[in-house]
């Protein structure tokens, strides 16, 4: 039998769904985390009987009339697919709002079980709900539940009741008057009556100790976190701490080892190196090529990527804590005025912040944005936020060329934000968008102490998928790159003094020409940038394979094994300006294919999609060109080659020309439409 989970946004549906099915769907403390329906099978320990119970987790909805995309998924599913039973998860802290939806569900003719979730919070606030009376008034079973990560209560009872109700009939306690309402006014009047009915129920069953309209501790925290002066600096500090802890402190310690009380504790990188040496040692009698393919190509490339795993995992952990505590909704509020100025709204903030972990869920989070234009612009811009997979690239170049990691990393995030803001402005200009009124409303969920367990789970899950990616896609890419680099087109081993005859060199060569204006004259770099589209970690893996360096992490303490940072820098043969330009080129050109796919499915428009890819290419190239040219003019003007600089400038002018042309065209069209409307 099929059981649907329906309820208001942020009522805890997904947490309950995860607990019942053992799935690990994303949860967060803001409205609208679930944007697609998800199915799972309920674990046997929650019910007796042999039948398989399929559970469907639906996106949250406040009512049956579709308002946002997620709400229409809910109502369409329930109306069309007719599940056997609906478990209605009701936020017990706000039944006055939630029961509106419940009364609508009860009218559908599908048996409903109400789960009064978050009952633990009510207990704390001394809010009492008379479940027996409520059950009588609604005409359906009502159970109190707790489904936080630490505690599970009442789930067995709810599932048991759902199983028992299959095929039974329930009488709706309230039905709208016969037939569809004649017009909008009649519909409104009918809904008002429904609310009156809900209010009368709430009055009978709920007793509150604290009036919810009074200022409470959460409002006081809000007053500080969304303060007009302090709000943005607090957000900046929080984000800086996330990156500092993951990249310079905790994450770096695990990666590189740390000295505690005079004892050196080896880090992951040291262990991987030891493993690689051990493999090389045990293969000393094997065929030279195959041994090298294994140690340099496969282990070398993969370990270069895995070496950054601690940094990435610590960041995922911290972002999960942030998502869980309820701060995200406040960040939306704080940044709404700024994003309004560039034609977006506070709703775009969540995709951008989630995008710092991974662009794919970041782009998917755009679905809660109502306006098509805003949603598409956000999906187009979210990949500019450096994601977890780009961290290794940042770490590599910051370590090899700039001695110390943190300012480079922080700078990259600020450049990302700047590009997003300017990009949004540009999108506005191009699409001929006139300042149409857009309203902003977001629910402020109560703060809660973030669950460590959930953060650890999220970290392990993301970390595991990183390892899987390293063990499959990246391993394969590295092996292919190694083979392509080792052979000529005639399938002969490349002569040591002629690396430019390899397959890889001839394939990547033409692309490398495009990179000359940004100061990069190596086909290896071009190859790395291209493999980066498969997965951004590949940039690091490919460079490690091509240059035969696998230990790429560096800090001052470890000094990358005796001055190896300068060795890496020397091997790459780049100036500092060129290194920074190449880094930014990799960060701000289009994201990996997975994220590009997500962009496509969220935008639902070929024009917008290709426009987005074009914009990303143009922005990445322009930023890299500007950084290299200006950087070189400042540090060493004599070394700037004139012809590439001019050609690069021409390319940038070309991008600008195309953008202006599209903008003029669209603006003209918008004006014509406006004129047509006026007629």
């Amino acid at each position, binding site marked *: 039998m099929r059981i649907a989970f329906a309820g208001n946004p942020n009522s805890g549906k997904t947490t309950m769904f995860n607990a019942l099915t053992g799935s690990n769907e994303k949860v967060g403390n803001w409205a609208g985390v679930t944007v697609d329906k998800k199915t799972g099978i309920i674990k046997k320990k929650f019910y007796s009987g042999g039948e398989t119970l399929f559970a469907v987790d639906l996106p949250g909805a*406040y*009512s049956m*009339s579709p*308002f*946002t995309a997620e709400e229409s998924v809910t109502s369409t599913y329930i109306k069309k697919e007719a599940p056997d039973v609906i478990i209605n998860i009701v936020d017990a*802290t*706000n*039944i*006055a*709002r939630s029961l*509106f*939806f419940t009364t609508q569900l009860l009218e559908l003719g599908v048996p409903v079980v109400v789960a009064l979730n978050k009952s633990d919070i009510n207990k704390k606030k001394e809010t009492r709900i008379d479940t027996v009376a409520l059950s009588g008034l609604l005409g359906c079973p009502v159970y109190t539940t707790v489904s936080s990560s630490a505690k599970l209560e009442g789930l067995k009872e709810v599932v048991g009741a759902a199983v028992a109700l299959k095929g039974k009939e329930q009488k709706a306690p309230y039905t709208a008057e016969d037939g569809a309402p004649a017009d*909008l006014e009649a519909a*409104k009047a009918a*809904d*008002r009556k429904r*609310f009156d009915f809900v209010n009368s129920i709430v009055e009978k069953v709920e007793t509150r100790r604290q009036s*919810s*309209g*009074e*200022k409470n501790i*959460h*409002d006081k925290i*809000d*007053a500080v976190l*969304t*303060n*007009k002066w302090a709000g943005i600096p607090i957000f900046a500090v929080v984000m800086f701490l996330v990156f500092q802890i993951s990249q310079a402190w905790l994450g770096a310690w695990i990666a590189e080892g740390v000295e505690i009380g005079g004892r050196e504790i080896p880090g992951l990188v040291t262990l991987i190196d030891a493993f690689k040496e051990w493999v090389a040692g045990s293969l000393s009698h094997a065929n030279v090529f195959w041994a090298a393919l294994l140690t340099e190509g496969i282990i070398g490339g993969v370990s270069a990527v895995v070496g950054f795993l601690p940094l990435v995992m610590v960041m995922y952990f911290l972002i999960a804590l942030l998502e869980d505590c309820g701060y995200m*909704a406040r960040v*939306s*509020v704080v940044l*709404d*005025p700024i994003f*309004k100025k560039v034609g977006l709204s506070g709703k775009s903030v969540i995709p951008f912040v989630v995008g710092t972990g991974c662009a794919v869920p970041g782009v998917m989070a755009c679905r809660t944005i*109502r306006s098509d234009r805003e949603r598409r612009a956000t999906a187009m811009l979210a990949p500019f936020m450096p994601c977890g997979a780009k961290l290794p690239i940042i770490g590599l170049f910051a370590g090899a060329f700039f001695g110390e990691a943190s300012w480079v990393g922080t700078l990259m995030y600020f450049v990302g934000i700047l590009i997003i803001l300017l990009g949004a402005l540009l999108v506005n200009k191009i699409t001929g968008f006139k300042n149409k*009124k*857009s*309203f*902003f*409303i*977001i*629910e*402020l969920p*109560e703060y809660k102490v973030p669950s460590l367990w959930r953060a650890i789970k999220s970290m392990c899950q993301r970390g595991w998928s990183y390892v899987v990616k390293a063990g499959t896609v990246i391993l394969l890419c590295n092996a292919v790159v190694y083979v392509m680099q080792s052979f000529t087109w005639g399938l002969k081993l490349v002569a040591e003094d002629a690396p430019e005859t390899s397959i890889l060199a001839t394939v990547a060569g033409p692309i490398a020409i495009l990179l000359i204006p940004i100061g990069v004259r190596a086909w290896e770099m071009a190859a790395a940038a291209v493999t980066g589209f498969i997965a951004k970690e590949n940039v690091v893996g490919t460079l490690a394979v091509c240059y035969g360096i696998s230990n790429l992490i560096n800090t001052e303490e470890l000094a990358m094994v005796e001055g190896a940072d300068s060795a890496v820098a020397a091997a790459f043969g780049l100036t500092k300006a060129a290194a920074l330009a190449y880094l930014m080129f990799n960060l701000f050109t289009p994201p990996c294919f997975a994220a590009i796919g997500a962009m496509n499915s969220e935008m639902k428009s070929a024009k917008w999609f290709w426009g987005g890819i074009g914009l990303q290419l143009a922005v990445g190239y322009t930023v890299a060109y500007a950084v290299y040219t200006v950087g070189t003019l400042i540090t060493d003007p004599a070394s700037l080659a004139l012809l590439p600089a001019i050609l690069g400038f021409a390319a940038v002018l070309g991008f600008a020309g195309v953008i202006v042309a599209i903008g003029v065209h669209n603006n003209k069209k918008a004006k014509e439409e406006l004129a047509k409307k006026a007629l």
Partner: protein
Amino acid sequence: MDLTKAIEGKEYIVKDIDTGDSEMDSFLFSLGCYSGAPIRVITKRRSGFTVAIKDARYSIDVHLARAIRI
């Protein structure tokens, strides 16, 4: 008057909502914000308001606050 002129902490009854966008109106309705329903401004900020509708908190911007008449 509209919600922007409300006094912090005082409960008002919504008289009328006109956002000029029927979807927005019905969304507000489903939250419990409709004419005849109580609403309270918890905090005023430069760019928006925190309001209490039923038993939840929402942050709304000035545009929306202007559309809610009390």
